[in-house]
């Protein structure tokens, strides 16, 4: 039966392919299909031995399959030892996966226009939102940014063939799309937004903290609602180690909240930037 509450499952790798040594896409079979909310994540490991010890949090990129045979996909960038080891795994080898975890994007409000913003590998948590919005024929645009052309998500990974959304690519060196940071592209569009459009707009963003901070500030200024998917080091991913907390506003005071449990998606106004 499909599941949507956290489970610890064993996956078998179907493919684990690198794209220009920058992004990897790993697909595995799991015992049953998982239903996830875009923005939710999984804790993934698969290398032998105790070192590194902890699984790595990866956004759920895609999931499907049929009863008795689920499939799940993740996109990751090699940033340290864990992801380097992950990139060396082969089809047929096993993964340990705990999923689905955390609170994803809130896409349930009717009649809204969405801007989906992904910086760097952050596209991996906004693409699933694009898929859901596309299926629903909701109006959305996507802003994807990277340092240079090769660091943009491969075109064939981009949802939108049949979806009504528009995609704006941005590169800091100008090798593709808008010449500049994705943050600047979003800020520029926000400035031109009519107050009426602003009131119907929701931004969903995932990427470097500085990008999220600037977008959150600009969105607040224009009264645009924004949801940000945060990242942090975490040991467990399901709320028991208390290692991944961030500061959130709780009235006029602040409190530590877990990225893995109360997040990873937060209302941008709640975050103490």
């Amino acid at each position: 039966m499909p599941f949507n509450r956290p489970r610890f499952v064993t996956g078998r790798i179907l493919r684990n392919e690198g794209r220009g040594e920058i992004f990897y896409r790993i697909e595995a079979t799991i015992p049953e299909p998982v239903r996830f909310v875009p923005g939710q994540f999984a804790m993934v490991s698969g290398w032998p031995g105790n070192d590194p010890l902890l699984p790595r949090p990866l956004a759920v990129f895609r999931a499907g399959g049929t009863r008795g045979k689920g499939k799940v996909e993740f996109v990751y960038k090699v940033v340290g030892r864990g992801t380097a080891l992950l990139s060396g795994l082969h089809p047929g080898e096993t993964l340990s996966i705990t999923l689905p975890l955390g609170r994803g994007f809130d896409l349930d409000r009717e009649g809204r226009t969405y801007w989906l913003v992904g910086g760097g590998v952050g596209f991996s948590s906004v693409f699933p939102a694009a898929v859901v919005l596309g299926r629903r024929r909701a109006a959305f645009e996507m802003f994807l940014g990277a340092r240079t052309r090769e660091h943009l998500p491969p075109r064939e990974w981009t949802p939108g063939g049949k979806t009504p959304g528009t995609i704006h690519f941005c590169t800091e060196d100008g090798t593709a799309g808008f010449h500049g940071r994705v943050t600047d592209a979003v800020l520029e569009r926000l400035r031109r937004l009519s107050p009426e459009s602003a009131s119907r707009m929701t931004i969903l963003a995932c990427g470097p903290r500085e990008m999220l901070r600037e977008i959150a500030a600009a969105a607040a200024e224009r009264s645009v609602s924004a949801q940000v998917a945060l990242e942090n080091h975490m040991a467990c991913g399901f709320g028991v180690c208390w290692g991944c907390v961030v500061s959130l506003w709780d009235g006029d005071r602040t409190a530590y909240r877990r990225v893995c449990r109360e997040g990873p998606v937060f209302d941008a106004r709640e975050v103490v930037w």
Partner: protein
Amino acid sequence: MVTPDLSVSLGGLRVKNPVMSASGTFGYGVEFTPFYDISRLGAVVVKGLSLAPTPGNPPGRIVETAAGMLNAIGLQNIGVERFVGDVVPRLEDAGATFVANIYGKTLEEYEAVARRLSEVPSLGAIEVNASCPNVREGGMAFGATTGGIAQLTERVRRCTGKTLWVKLSPNVTDIASIAKAAEGSGADAVSLINTIVGMAVDHRTRRPELSNVTGGLSGPAIKPVALRMVWEAAKAVRIPVIGVGGIQNAADALEFLLVGASAVQVGTANFRNPRACVDILVGIEAFFREQRIARLEEYRGGLQREKIP
């Protein structure tokens, strides 16, 4: 062969098997109900409780190290009142045997938390945290000397009729004398070890990895230290010793039982495998069946010192 009898008495609390969670790695227990039936465990030991809710340390709380991790959470917790009001009913519903780990900045705070918890009939035992390395006051400040541990144990002992465990710090020169001090002051059992104080820095940014600078090392990296200390403590005291530190699988747990532990607590392993405790329990049962061991007592403390002929 019939199911082996894994039950064991832990200073007044009889548990059906020797596998428990370690405080601070299992939340309040209920977080694990999506993964398995937590009533299968010998006991659930919950995260350290203080009198009032505690915010904990600023972010930069964990860092992975070789075969282990450092944490400096700073005992963020919901406080004893919310635990009693919100969590206890859920643990009761789950049918779990549960133990509360307690912590205070002062002796009086330890006493107040112990008194409040003594009013909870379903609570199996109180485990006094005399060993948290990540808070300035309380915790390890009491656990580092025989005088400190004796005073803390005695004071809490006087406030509660509950089974009382004292969780010991490895950051001491002689664990045997610390364990004896706890025993002599009224502890019904001791659990050890808590984390080992450690540190990690970044050579490029020239900064510590943890906001607290130092933290507690846990995971497989500390298992040999824990095993040695449990062995030393078990020889020194007559009360049960609960082995904690780096247990990842059934073999690790059995090693602790072999050197004299009456039971074990599984900690950091829960982070990478939410089913770790129950997997370890199943593994111990399978081992006893394979070895035709009918009762835990037949195996426990049976370390052979002679050379194999």
